[in-house]
Every structure is written in C-alpha cells, then in structure tokens.
C-alpha cells in the first residue's frame, strides 16, 4: 500500500504542484486547503506524513501542529512545516514540528525529507 501524505496549504497552486510531484513519485496524496483536518484524522485514515503550511488563512498552522503533536492518535505522525518565511525554522521546531522547509524549495529537498521519515513509498 502506498504511503499516505496529507498536504495542508491554503494556496491552490501549491497544493496542485505538490500533488503533481508526490503522485509522480507514487505517494497517495490527500489535499486540504482550509486546515479543517482534525475531524477526519482517525484510524485507519491517518496519513504517514503531514506537510503543513505555517500560515493558513483563518487558521494558524502552528496551532494545528501543536494539537496534532498532543493528540495520542496523531502525535507519532511526522510533520514537515513549510513557509515562505525562512526565519520560521526554529520557532516551528520548538512547537514539535519534525522538519521545516522554506518556500521555494527544490524537488529533491522535499523528497529527501519525506524519505527520511517514511522510508519507502
């Protein structure tokens, strides 16, 4: 079974691009544009990795990260936070994010990170 990756970003263009990239690499990709993900994150629908944008319209990505890392059911899921603010790196790691990636990033950078957390496709 393909590894599942949840991508949360309020920008359609980013979602589509990452979807194109990850699907071409054989991952099963779920997209979310509004951050309303907590309802659906239940076993057996849990993703293997979450890509989470720091700034979401209407919702704070960091707050979402904090909740996910607190919940028993989700705290084991690696979270890679992405942002256009390169300086957000340290602050997101402080709230429990596993990695940070500054926009724009290289294709290989993202794939390397994902590979680091879930190994196989």
């Amino acid at each position, binding site marked *: 079974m393909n590894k599942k990756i949840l991508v949360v970003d309020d920008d359609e*263009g980013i979602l589509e691009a*990452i979807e*194109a*990239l990850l699907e*071409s690499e054989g991952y099963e990709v779920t997209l979310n544009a509004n951050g309303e993900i907590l309802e659906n994150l239940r076993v057996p629908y849990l993703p293997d990795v979450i890509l989470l944008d720091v700034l979401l319209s209407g919702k704070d990505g960091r707050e979402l990260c904090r909740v996910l890392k607190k919940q028993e059911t989700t705290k084991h899921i690696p979270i890679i936070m992405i942002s*256009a603010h390169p300086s957000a*790196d340290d602050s997101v790691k402080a709230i429990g994010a596993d990695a940070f990636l500054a*926009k*724009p990033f290289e294709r290989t950078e993202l794939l390397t990170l994902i590979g680091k957390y879930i190994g196989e496709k």
Partner: protein
Amino acid sequence: MSKDTQEILSLQAVRSIFESVPGLYLILKPNAPTFTIVAVSDAYVQATMTKREEILGKSLFEVFPDNPDDPNATGVKNLTTSLLTVLKQQQPHKMAIQKYDIRKPKKEGGGFEVRYWSPLNSPVFDEKGNISYLIHSVVDVTQLVQAEKREKAAEKKVTELQLLYSELLLAQKQLQESEQRLTNMLESVTDGFVSYDKDWRYVYVNEKAAEMSGTKKEDLIGKTLFELYPNRIDTPLFQEYRRVMSEGKPKQLEYFSPGAKRWIRTNLYPSSQGMTSFITDITDRKQAEERQNFLEEISSKLVKSFDNAVTLQEIGKLIITYLADYCRIVVIDDTNRIREISVNHTDPTKVSLVRSLYDNYKDLSDMAYGIPRILKTGKPEIIKKIDKKILAPVKKYTTLLKTVKQIGLKSYMGVPLIARGKIIGAITFSSVSEHRYYTKQDLKFVEELAHRIALVLDNVRLFGEAQGEIKERKQAELNLKYLAEASKMLSSSLDYKTTLSNIAKLAVPKIADWCAVDLLNGKGGLEQVAVAHKDPQKVRWAKELRKIDPPDLNAPTGIPHVIRTGKSEYYPVITDKTLVQIAKNKKQLKLLRDIGFTSAIVAPLCREGRCIGGITFVTTETKRHFTEADLRMAEELANRASIALENAGLYQASQDAIMLRDNFISVASHELKTPITSVKIFTQVMQEHSKQIGDLKALNNLTKMNKQLDKMTELIYNMLNISKIQAGRLEFSQKLFAFDTLVKEIVDVLQQGAVKHKIVIDGHTNSTIYGDEDRIGQVLSNLIANALKYSPKSDEIIVHLSSDDNDVTVCVEDFGIGMAKEHFDHIFERFYRVFDTTDKTFPGLGIGLYISSEIIHRHHGKLWVESTTGKGSKFYFSLPLKRDKKPNGIQIL
C-alpha cells in the same frame, strides 16, 4: 588817653607783642641784597629751629641759605626776587608756595629739613612814604587743607600788624598824633583788643571789645577784671588768664560765651606791663566748622548704603539733630512717582499734626510755599519768620492755619534736589524753636547740602542702572545658553513630548520659576505636555488651577489667545490687581495669589503655519521681571521648538511611510514566493518527466527555467533584506557554529552548480563562531558566486581560511577581470555598479555586496577588497572570535 596807655605803646612793648604773635614773621631792613633781620616772631624762631639772638642783625640769606644738597633749590633766588619786587612796586608781594629747606641746629644733627612755605612779603612805610622795613611772613603749608585758612589769617594779621607797626613807629616821633591814629586803627580792627596791667586793670579797650563785653568802654577802663566779673574768678577761663600772666607765655583760648551766645577766641599776650588780649568772635567760623562736620557726616552716610530710602532716613535723622525740628524729604523714583521720607522731632503729639499737614495740603496748587512748588520750579525757598503776614494768603484754609499754629512753626526752608539739571526731589526744614530762625546763610548751606545729596542719589541711581545692566547682561548670557542647550535638545530627539518636557525643565530656575508647554490635542482641547517648577508643590497648585478652570479656547488672554492670534503675550509686571481681574472666583484668586505671579511670557508654537500650542514662562518668588530681551528669547525658543515639532511630524510621517513600504515588501515578497514555489515544483516535475522520456531538449529548457526561478527567488530575497536593513530590522538568529564546516557546505553546494571552475579551500580556522550561520553562509555564497561570475576565462577560485587570537578571516580569490582601485570604497554601497572602460556593466553586483557588508558589520566584522584590473580580485571578510555569547534566538543586531 591815660598814662598807662602811653607806656604800653613804647617800642619795647610793641616788640614784645610782635614777638609773641602766633604767626611766622620776620622784619627785615630794606637793605638789598643783605636784608638784615631786625625782628622775628617766636613762632618763626620755633618753626625754623633757630635762636633769636643768633639771627637778629644777620643777613636773611646768611641765616637761611639754600639747601646745598638740593641742586634744584630756588628759595634764595625766589625770595630775593620777591623782596626786590616789594621794594620796586612798593606793595605786598605774595610768593608761590616755596620749597625752602631749613638748616637744622648742629646738636640736632645738622643738615637741612624739607619744608614748604607760602611766603608773603610786605612793605612798611615811614612818615615820608619810604619803605622803612619789610615784613616777611611765611606759612608752613605741609597740611594743604589748612594752608588756605592760615594764609588768609596770616595775610590779615600782616595787614593788621603792618598798620600797627607803622602807627607805632610814627607814634614814637609824633606821640600825640600817632596816639590818635593808633587808637583809631585799633578801634577799626574787627577784633576786640584789651590791655590789662599787672593788677588786671583795664588799661585799653577798643570799641569792638566793649561791644563784645556788652559794657561801655568808660565803665571798663581803670576797673579790674575781677571787680567787674566777681562770679567768674574761678571759672576755667579766668584761671587760664591768671596762668598766662604768671607764666609769661602767650596762649590762645577758644570758648563759648553763654551770655553773648557767641564763640570767642582770645589770644593772650603777657608783657612786662601786664597782658594784652585780642578777642575774635569765631561764632561764624565755629558754625561753619560744625556744618562742615555735618556735611562730612552726611557724605559718609550717603556712600554707605545703596538703598536710597535707608540713606535718606539717615540723612533726615542728622538734619533734625543739626538743622531742623521737622524734616521732609521726597524723591521722584524711576516711575515718576513721589516717594516720601519724613523725619520728625520726637514730640509725638506734634508728629501726627505735621503728618496731617503733609497729607492734607500736599496737593494744594495755590500754596506759595511747599514741596509741590519746589518740585515744579526747582527753586529754593525760605520763610525766615512764619508770622501772620506770611499766613495771610492761606487764611481760607482754617484747619491748615490752626495746625501750623498748633505745631508752632517758626521758620521754614525748602530746597530742591537737582541732579544733572533734573529735579529728582526736595527737602524741607521746619523749625519750632524760638532760637532757630533760618537765615539766607542757612539756606545757602542747605542748598549745598541738597546739592551733595542729589549728586550721591544720582550716582546711586547710575550705579543701580549699571548693576541692572550687568544683571541684564548676565541674564542675556543665561538666555543664550538656554537657547543653545534647548536647541540641541530639540534637534537631538524626535520624541517631541520628552524634548519639550526637557526644555521646560531646563528653563527652571535660571530663566523662569515656572515653565509649561501646552499643545492642542485632537479633541479640541488643550493638553499640558510639559510643566516644570522650582517648587513641586506649585506644580500641584497649577494642576489644581487647571482643574478648577480648564482652559477655555475662547479665553481673551493666555495660551488660547496666543494660539488664536499667533502672537506672544508679555506681562512684565503682574500686580495683585491683574490677578483680581483675571480670577473667576475667590478660590481661584487665592490660588493665583499663592502661586505669586510676578511676570509672565506666553509664546506661540506653530506647525505648518498653524498655531498648535504655547510655551509659558512665569517668574514667581525670584521676583524677576521679564524684559524685552527675555521676550525675544522666548519667541526664538518657541520658533525653534516649532521647527522641531515640524521635524518630528515629518519624521513620524516618513517613519510611517517606511513602515508601510516594509510591510508591503514583506507581504509582497511572501506572496510572490508562493507562485514561484508552485512553478518551481511543476518545472522540476516536468524535468524529471523529460529525463524519463528522454526529451533532452525539453529537459535543457526546463533546467534554464528553473535557474531563472532561482534568480527570481534571490531577487525577492534581496529586496526583502534591503528593506529590513533600511528599517534596521534585519533579524539574526544567533548561535555557536563550527566555521570551517559552514565553509565546506557552502563550497560543496556551489561546486555542484559550477561547470568550469574548481573551488578550492586553502587552510582552516578550527574556530567556533557565534552568529547567524545562514546569513554568514549567504555572504560566502555571494562572494563565491561573484568570483565565478567575474572570472569567466579562468578555472579556479581559492577560498583562503586563516585565524589568529582575535578573528577568523576568509579570502575569496579569483583570477578574473578585477576592478580599478577607485571602486574599492564604493562597491559595498547600495545599488553601486562597476563600469569598465568600455562601459559594460556587471549586473547584480551591488545589492549582494551591500547586504553582505551589512551582515558582516552587524556581526562586528570587516569586509574589504583587493583587486587589480585584468588580474583578479580578493574579497576578504573577518569575524571576531571573542564575542559575548548571547542565548540562542532571534536578535536584531
């Protein structure tokens, strides 16, 4: 004439009288040039330290030669000339004051003693009109003050003696005739002249002496002194008389005769026949002396105090001691007001009467006498005797008349005080004593007195003005200093509230006791943005005052008025009346009085041509009155403060604009990154796809596209950084990191992108640096990227690493086109671009180096370049090793 009288007229008697007179006289024979000494007075002998028997019969110049030690001695020459002049012109000749040293007797050490003399030579004529003798009289003028007096006395005496002597000589030959003439002469002498025999019998009395004694001449002659005045036998005066007679030495006595109420001076000359007495009425002289003393005392009082009121009070006290029972002094002060100082005699019942006299009639215009008239005319006035005739014109003022009578005014004088032609006051003198009726001489005296007082008062005023000027100058200096300091404050900070508060504080206490700044607030009210006072208590009062009476923007005076008109208000003198006028109620008035306003200035503060507030200076307890100069200072300060306010406004506006721009750039750059991220991912997905399907042309194009996207990303990144640097908000994330590792990572990444060049690391630092690893990496990337770009024809870039105790140093060396020295200082400037001789530009250099230099400087490091055109460049940067380690985190350096 009695037989006794004739006896005394013998030559011997005359000689004896002559010898005992108090003046310094020589009688000389007119036998020029010998001038034989025939007679000498005791005083002369004494003064010249000679002996009578040694000089009589000798030549004048043999006895009194010039001092041989004084080569400039002209005594002999001058005296000879004078004596010859007397012989030629047959009249007295007065010589100028002479230095004529006298010979000291051998037993006193010999030599000469320095003396100054005022000599007078006079001829004595015989019956044929020929000069029979010369009288040489001298006055020792060592004490110049007395010189004139003595000279006059000597002159008078010489004249008298001259007469006497001629008459006596005449008498010798024509007894009868000369007797009569002598008598006449003695009678005509203004002094009294009395001769007693050994038994104190009056043998001669002249008219004057008889008049003085109040007894007829006939009733005196032949009687003894003691039978005439039996009750005076034991008085000190008569005791002196007896002593003179018994001791045979002449004596001068001065005494007050209570009967005649006159001062008398008697010169007693004992002789073998008895005693002769010259009696002089010296009352006038005594009075003059007394007045002289009085004037001197006044003068000393006058210079003791610079407070006129005190001085005049003192003078008034002296006047009632010497001159009057009531004394009234008025002076016209600077503001043309009449200030009065009255001193009265100690009778309290009359003092109030005099007071009422002054008060009730001071404004009567039809009075013939009095201070108002003196102040108007500047003429002195006197009423020798106040009688019915004098009082007739004021009959209609019955109370006045009654008061004058009650006081018992007897005599009156009034004089103006005039200084430099200006009437500055007046003094009146009133007498209630029977024995004090003022005379013209008295008036003359008090005029002199008034003259002196006026002079001193004027001097005191001038001195006061000078002092005032000095004070003003000092204040002007303080004002200038304040202005300078305040201006510095105004330009040093753009936080105008703090600045205005500091300016207010600076004004106290040297400029004002209280300084406040009020500005219009946006809500149509006034806000006190700064207030300073010497006394914090008063600041509370002032705040209370504001609470009771919030400023009304339509108020006719004060800050609201200044704001409306744009013109300053200046209150040099705030009187209680002013406070009463402006107070709205009793509570406010009390508060205003407690604050104690003395003087105030309110100056407008403006911005963009509109008045927006005012700065207020107030003096209270220092009682300093602001001057026009202070007003100018306040206006200048307000002017400068206005400019500062304007600057602060402009600065705020520019800060707002910068903030807006930064926010825009920040938002825009992040917004731009999002689509770039998306495009970049698609590009790379397509690259991957082209690779898989073997479409190499597409792959090549997509690679180029990806590179342009990177360039675009860098531009956005730089744009954001520059904006942050400009705003001073470039953030740094500081931590300790291994420097060599960073260098290796950067070189590795760049080596991947470099097709032709080999990037070599030379050396190592083995150092740990505290700083922002990413940004320092960015600097190194930038330098290596530039090296690659500007050395297209070479194939090597060397990164040299080194370190010492203080710094690590990196040098990126290329072997490219290089640059001219003139660019070295500029290439780190924002937007600077290097043009080569063919005007070809090297794009992209400026911004990267500018950001790099900012990053290095913020890390307290250095960035510099060495380069030669055509040979290559070396870009260096160094970073300090020992920096205080700060906790990790984001910092703004």
